[in-house]
């Protein structure tokens, strides 16, 4: 290893420093793995709903009303005799899809806005003032108002929730862009003549990913809860659709005689959100230890 390569210079064979890979550290993080398992459980339920479900989620069977949980109906039946287990499984499909769609839309728009605001000083003021105003609204209320205005459908819920969370993501991305853009490797890229677009995509974005990933995990968690709230208040996908919020809304009139209708979808929500919160906490521990405890 001591071939003389540079003129008059002996090659230095300093030991290479090895770092534990991020993946490795995540795999060793117990809470992160717990969260991952919980969340993957829900994702599997959502993807394989057709195989996992034991009944038809919307078929009304008056004879079987209010059956308590048992071997035929794991989670019991509701006032229309529909199987709650089946509806919860299909509810996962809706909640997880809405969560993913919201995260995707929020990430796309929020990251673009944050990147532009952080990189181009002239756009910063205009964009962030607008984001501040959107953030001034209470999250649930704005989502409710938007969903109410747009009309009840899954797509509109995604739009409404994204409008609520885009400013939060934009703010996180902007904050980290402001730090990264001052790094010497960004100056170096300028010095070799790289375009603004290249610098943003190749240098700034990849180095701003950590806080973004953490934030997006929490956005997913909020989206699952918010979707349930919206459905519960009647601006979600219209009733026969098996959504967790819908099941709870229908069950709330029967809590005296059939508490299981409300119980199980709530547990499903709680497990999903808990899983996502654990994922987010774990990601933050590993990727971005200096980040604040919370910024919702």
């Amino acid at each position, binding site marked *: *290893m001591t071939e003389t*390569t*540079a*003129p*008059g*210079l*002996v*090659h*230095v064979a*300093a030991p*290479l*420093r*090895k*770092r534990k890979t991020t993946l490795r550290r995540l795999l060793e993080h117990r809470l992160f793995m717990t969260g991952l398992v919980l969340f993957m459980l829900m994702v599997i339920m959502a993807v394989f709903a057709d195989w996992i479900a034991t009944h038809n989620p919307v078929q009304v069977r008056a004879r079987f009303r209010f059956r308590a949980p048992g071997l035929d109906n794991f989670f019991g039946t509701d006032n229309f005799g529909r199987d709650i287990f089946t509806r919860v499984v299909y509810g996962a499909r809706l909640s997880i899809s809405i969560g993913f769609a919201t995260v995707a839309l929020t990430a796309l728009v929020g990251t673009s806005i944050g990147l532009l605001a952080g990189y181009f000083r002239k756009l910063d003021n205009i964009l962030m003032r607008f984001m501040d105003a959107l953030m001034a609204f209470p999250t649930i209320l704005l989502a409710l108002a938007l969903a109410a205005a747009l009309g009840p459908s899954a797509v509109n819920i995604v739009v409404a929730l994204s409008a609520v969370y885009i400013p939060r993501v934009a703010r996180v991305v902007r904050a980290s862009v402001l730090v990264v853009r001052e*790094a*010497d*490797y960004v*100056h*170096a*890229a*300028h*010095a*070799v*003549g*790289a*375009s603004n677009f*290249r610098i943003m995509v*190749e*240098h700034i974005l*990849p*180095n701003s990913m950590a806080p973004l990933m953490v934030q997006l995990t929490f956005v997913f968690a909020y989206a699952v809860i918010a979707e349930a709230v919206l459905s519960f208040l009647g601006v979600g996908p219209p009733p026969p659709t098996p959504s967790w919020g819908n099941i709870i809304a229908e069950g709330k009139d029967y809590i005296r005689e059939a508490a299981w209708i409300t119980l199980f979808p709530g547990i499903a929500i709680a497990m999903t959100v808990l899983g996502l919160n654990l994922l987010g906490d774990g990601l933050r521990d590993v990727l971005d230890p200096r980040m604040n405890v919370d910024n919702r």
Partner: protein
Amino acid sequence: MTGVDNLVEVENLVKHFPVRKGFLSSRVTGQVRAVDDISFTVARGETLGLVGESGCGKSTTGRLLIRLLDPTSGSIRLNGDDIAKIPDKELRSRRRDVQIIFQDPFSSLNPRKTVEGIISEPLIVHRIGTTAERKARVAELLKLVGMAPDYARRYPHEFSGGQRQRIGIARALALNPKFIVCDEPVSALDVSIQAQVINLMRDLQRELGLTYLFISHNLAVVRHIADRVAVMYLGKIVEMTDKNALYENPRHPYTKALLSAIPMTNPDQRRQRVVLTGDVPSPMSPPKGCRFNTRCPVAVASCREIEPPLVDVGRGHQVACHLVTP
């Protein structure tokens, strides 16, 4: 300085940073005069050392020269063409001739890119060569800076500070630049590594015919590599001459103070220590007259009134001091 082939000619270069106060209105309440009317030249193949305390404007000067910052006024001629005011688009193609080596070997390499990605970026940006040709060029550059070509697939965090600095040098060399601004390239390194990197840079200079502007606060390092040295204080050049004249026979009181702070290798040899008192004044409101008058041990009344120009006191030795005459 006629008859010398100058690669870089800087004339009356000024950089002021506006200081804004308030929100909404963003009134400009002052100007930080980071670089305040400096002129110098760098001959082809030589190394000009630029020294001074932190905050004196030496790094700003370096960044102006490679146009990471836009100058407020003045001209920067590279090979005779003024690059101080050319628009961004045109500038991008001119970037091939001028490159920079940064101080911090940890912040200067993108942690998400491989060494190959880092060194080949200039080639990609300027659409030079095919993928295979770029690969070959990266290997060649790595060899040139004394590293094994098979390090190309590794990430920056796997290397030590000195190795990372070599990668930074390889990136700067990728486009075959004529002129390289070295912004404190060894200040962040261990002393034992500093010499290796400095020697590498000297060898590269000889081999590739490079011209350096070597910025440092460390006079000993500058003495080792520079041909000529310029001393900056509060945005101005106060003394500039060839290396030997400066170190053997410093004329400006500030230079004398700086040099007296260097420890001597021979304990019997005593030099009169000039200790500067007080802090460097704010570059937002530099003192009237000579900028050094507030800390100068020999200042007289006129120093507080009239700003001394940088004049030749003999054989190209330029000094800005009322008390130094040819």
